[in-house]
């Protein structure tokens, strides 16, 4: 794991570009995320919010630019980066033959967290999936799948949360819970980078807002 330096933010992105042929989706994007703070990327459809997250999370390859975690280049192939980065994007799918609680149990144990049973039970209660614990993912509603995806980020160690439109398909109670949870995550010293179209969520969680539509 790279040694943190006092001057470097948790996540630093400089001159990030992503071009698809002649289409320049991102040009010279700069952003920093400090520990204990949240940065929200907002903007209209097609402004490159999700593309930026995909490049930072390693799901897509940037055309140029640098992405640093703790002052060292971010390499999503390294086990250390995978330990520190909790990512919830649309490309997260589930094992068809493991139940809701088994998914969370597997992740907690794979990350060797202390007291995995207690943590899984707490998160399961937090996301309101206690009654679906034995259900297989194929039978969950889209909202319940979203809650499971979010829960998967909370049963593991993390230093930076990357969330792509986490409000999607959540009901009113779910949105309120999500906002409270993210604020608590910040208080625990986590950095958060999120893309959202929900103004209330951004207002409640984000310390800084970067509007990609204005760049």
């Amino acid at each position, binding site marked *: 794991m790279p040694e943190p330096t006092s001057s470097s933010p948790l996540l630093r992105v400089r001159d990030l570009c992503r071009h698809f042929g002649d289409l320049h989706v991102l040009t010279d994007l700069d952003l920093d995320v400090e520990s204990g703070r949240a940065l929200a990327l907002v903007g209209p459809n097609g402004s490159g919010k999700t593309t930026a997250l995909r490049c930072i999370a390693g*799901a897509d390859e940037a055309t140029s630019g640098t992405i640093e975690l703790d002052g060292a280049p971010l390499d999503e192939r390294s086990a250390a980066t*995978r330990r520190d980065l909790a990512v919830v994007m649309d490309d997260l799918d589930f*094992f*068809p033959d*493991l139940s809701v609680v*088994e998914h969370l149990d*597997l992740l907690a*144990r*794979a990350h060797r967290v202390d007291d995995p049973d207690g943590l899984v039970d707490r998160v399961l209660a937090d996301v309101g999936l206690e009654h679906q614990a034995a259900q297989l993912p*194929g039978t969950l509603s889209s909202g319940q799948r979203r809650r499971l995806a979010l829960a998967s980020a909370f049963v593991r160690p993390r230093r930076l949360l990357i969330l792509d439109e986490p409000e999607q398909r959540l009901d009113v109670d779910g949105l309120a819970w999500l906002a409270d949870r993210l604020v608590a995550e910040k208080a625990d010293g986590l950095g958060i980078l999120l893309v959202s179209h929900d103004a209330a969520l951004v207002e409640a969680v984000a310390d800084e807002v970067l509007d990609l539509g204005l760049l």
Partner: protein
Amino acid sequence: MTAGAEVTARSLRRQMREWRRGRADTTLYEQLSDAYIWVFSIVVIGAMAISALIQTRVGIATGCTAGPCEDARTSLVWASVAGVVAVALAAAQAVGPVMVTPATGAWLLTTPVDRGPLLRSRLLLAALTSAIGCGAVVALTTLLAGSSPAAIVALALLAAVLGSAAVLAAAMWQASGGRGTRRAATATGAVTTAWMLLIALDRAPRTSDDWSAGITGWIVLGVAAVAAAALVVVAVGRLTMLLRAQLVPGGSLLASLSGALAGLDLTLAYDVLVARRWRNRATVRPVRGGPGGVGALIWRDVVRLRRSRGAVTALAASLLVPYVVARLGLDGVIVLASALAAFLTGVWLCSALRTTGRNPGLMRSFPMTLATIRTATLVVPAGALAVWSLAAAPAIAHAVPDTRPGEVVPVAIATGAAALGATARWLLAPAPDYSQPLVSSPAGAIPTGLIGSVFRGFDVLLLLTVPLLVAPRADGALVSLALNAGVMAFLVHRR
């Protein structure tokens, strides 16, 4: 259609046909002219296949002259008849057998039109498809078993009638939830397995197919045909009892499978079948606990193994293949047939490998490298195939000139390992890349490597069994295992 005109199933079908024909921009003749290469290829490959089959038949006949071997061949013909009926019932249960596409379900079944005539042609098409499939498989089996031409025709026709009857019976039971189909499929599957077991143990009752070519055979065929005709009447009469919820799921499944097969993406078809199987199950008894780190992934596969009794049973049943092949006196193909059987059944134990392989989001959730995750998901299937190999070793010994354990066991282990290598190759195959330059073909532009994707898995299987076929002894096994290690290392590290 004017308001107040009588709407019937026939008028709806006619209108849809007119719409489709109105949109056609080429004639069938023009399509066939464009596809002349395909037609030519099919004719040439078909002729080669028929020639190869006849040569194989001659080879089997000359290699099998002893009494037990001939008995096993004849017995196998009857086992294949029971087997195709079991498969027809299982397939009918999976798709309906009467089904409609989601679009038809939404647009036509919601109209106040009598569903009977709408569904009749679908039922008859399903029965016809089953008849052709069952007849073809049994014709192939009887041809290879050395039956007389008259017996081949009679038994193929009998299998065709039984196959269509199976689908018609399944349609009859469809309205009541298909429990009858499930029971019949299980019973015929058990009969087939038991029969194969008796053949493998050389305990099968002495059978003959000579009578099938005579008057007795035609009488049996006639009775079966009359019974099938009666089933047609009953099944058609019950079509109106079918609920939309009983018709659309099969159509959705078939549409998904068709989409996967149209793109020659067999692994996508695998995903569709696995997802459907677990979605139908809906819930499981959760199992928590186990080791941490990489061990958690391996432990989950152990839990899966306990949960997937069908897959484990299929792998265990595939052990019959090497023993039956040995009983048939086909010593030269035991290794290839064993590896193929282990590959086709072992692949159902590897859902974790496939799920993590196609799912970058899920991979990112684990604190390990890609190669570590893939290796961890291969551990339990590898263990199961190692046990399978040891259990198959006595049969594989027929293919090894020196039958000392030190020579036979490495060959058996290498056979199972070849199946594992083929499985990894097949399940970790990247999807066709449509962003790459496309190749022009009579069927339109296709991505490079699309046609080759059909042979993925089988290519590695062949590569790894060739050393065992050329040198069926310990050193041949070592060469195969060394090649396998290279293939696996490449597959688990590939991004």
